[in-house]
């Protein structure tokens, strides 16, 4: 155990190690950020197609969306990443960070779509009816009534999804990318500290801190969105 703390001290007092961790952390954040962005955009589109009233124009898009979410949610992320790297984007010189962003973005989109769909469907149908009875357009009803209420249900689950993506990006080290996880492996490798345990522990602290901050932000947003509920108690 003494050894453990000595090694922690060694890691934090070696600038090269800290630099490596920060570099790895940057890649983790880069991939996560854009993957989440793609996830939210694409996920919203999928969710909207999914909850839209059935019509002949939407038969094929609806089918595609359901196949898409089924496949993505039904297969492990690591396999999807491998397929992206070694089959779909198997071009020489294709930047791996873009491949990784797309792989995680497409994955996150399927889960985000479910989150958003659930959020929209959880809005009481009476709310839509009220809008209809007042002669409002579907557009107004969606943006003024359904969406604001759905967001309240969506935010907590979306926060979860963001956290999941950040942690899941750790598998990019499997395809040789220098993320936080790989930085820990590098620092733990033979010519450096020659023990994985301490650098892995420190990398875990980085993930933990990031996720703690995100949880904090999400809680704040949730709280401000709950205004219309809170007054009920007053």
């Amino acid at each position, binding site marked *: 155990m003494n050894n453990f703390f000595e090694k922690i001290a060694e890691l934090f007092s070696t600038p*090269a190690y800290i*630099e*490596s961790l920060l*570099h790895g952390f*940057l*890649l983790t*954040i*880069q991939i996560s*950020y*854009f993957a989440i*962005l793609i996830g939210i955009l694409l996920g919203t589109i999928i969710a909207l197609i999914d909850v839209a009233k059935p019509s002949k124009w939407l038969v094929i898009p609806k089918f595609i969306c359901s196949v898409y979410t089924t496949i993505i949610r039904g297969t492990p992320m690591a396999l999807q990443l*491998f397929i992206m*790297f*070694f089959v779909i984007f*198997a*071009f*020489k*010189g*294709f*930047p*791996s*960070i*873009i491949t990784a*962003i797309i792989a995680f973005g497409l994955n996150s989109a399927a889960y985000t779509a479910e989150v958003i769909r659930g959020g929209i469907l959880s809005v009481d149908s009476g709310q839509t009816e009220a809008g209809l009875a007042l002669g409002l357009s579907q557009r107004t009803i969606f943006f003024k009534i359904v969406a604001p209420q759905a967001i309240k249900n969506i935010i907590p689950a979306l926060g979860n999804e963001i956290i999941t993506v950040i942690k899941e990006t750790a598998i990019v080290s*499997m*395809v*040789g*990318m*220098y993320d936080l996880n790989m*930085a820990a*492996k*590098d620092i*733990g*490798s*033979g*010519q450096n*500290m*020659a*023990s*994985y*345990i301490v650098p892995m522990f420190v990398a875990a602290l980085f993930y933990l801190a990031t996720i703690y901050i995100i949880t904090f932000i999400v809680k704040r947003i949730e709280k401000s969105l709950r205004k219309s509920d809170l007054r009920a108690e007053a």
Partner: protein
Amino acid sequence: MHKVKSTIFIMLFLLVTVGMGVSVWWSIDGEKGADYVVETNVPFAPFEYYENRQVVGVDVDIVNRVAKKLDKTIQVKNVEFDVIIDNVEAGKIADAGAAGLTITPARAEKVNFTIPYYDSVQYVIFNKNMPPSLRDDHVVWEALADAKLGSQIGSTGYLFVEDEIENGVLAGTSTTIKGIDSHQLAADAILAHIIDYAVADELAAKFIIDKNPDLEALPLYYSGATRELDYPVEESYAIAVNKDRTELLEAFNEVLSEMLTEDAEGKTEIDRLVLKHMGLVNE
């Protein structure tokens, strides 16, 4: 008030997105447009390891020499060890693999190998407090019988052990082999009592025991008729090249034979590079 808040939020969001975009753009910049791609698997010092997040090592030095000779750019890419041979065989994203690859018949069916450039011996890493039975300065296969072994998955050590368990010295014993992410993690697994011993290449093993006082490593031998006739578990490293890239294979072979020529002191350039990358150049 509400408007101001959302404006600030949108500005902040755009700022962060643009900033992240630029940073991604920078990291892409260094990656595109190489004539050849050579795949490797870090860390496997002294052949490939990270130095300031760049892959360096003996294999990288060899690749750079080939690039110079061909007057082409070659990108060295770090990937999972397991996929290198398949990727080189497919030739779509990789033209060659330089990762301390041992020549095996199965691999040779898929790719062309250059001439061997380094002979390595397999080592057994063990906890000093729980050593296997030793024969002076080495360990024989029989001493590993009924033990829980571990090795980097897909590495030669792993393949050797698998072979011996299936139809070799260890056949019929309850010996098991666990495929682990890297040699280093295999060493950590010994200390965590997940496995009893790890089997790794000589140099990797030496790096590991150098920094872990609780661990020791000794070469692995096949037992001969007498102790004196025991012989080591050897392997030869070569570079794997896609079967259609003959120009690349030739260039590698030319460079390697240059680098394997002994100088006045009886040392080859490869030897010197190994010493240099092990940090032993001044000793």
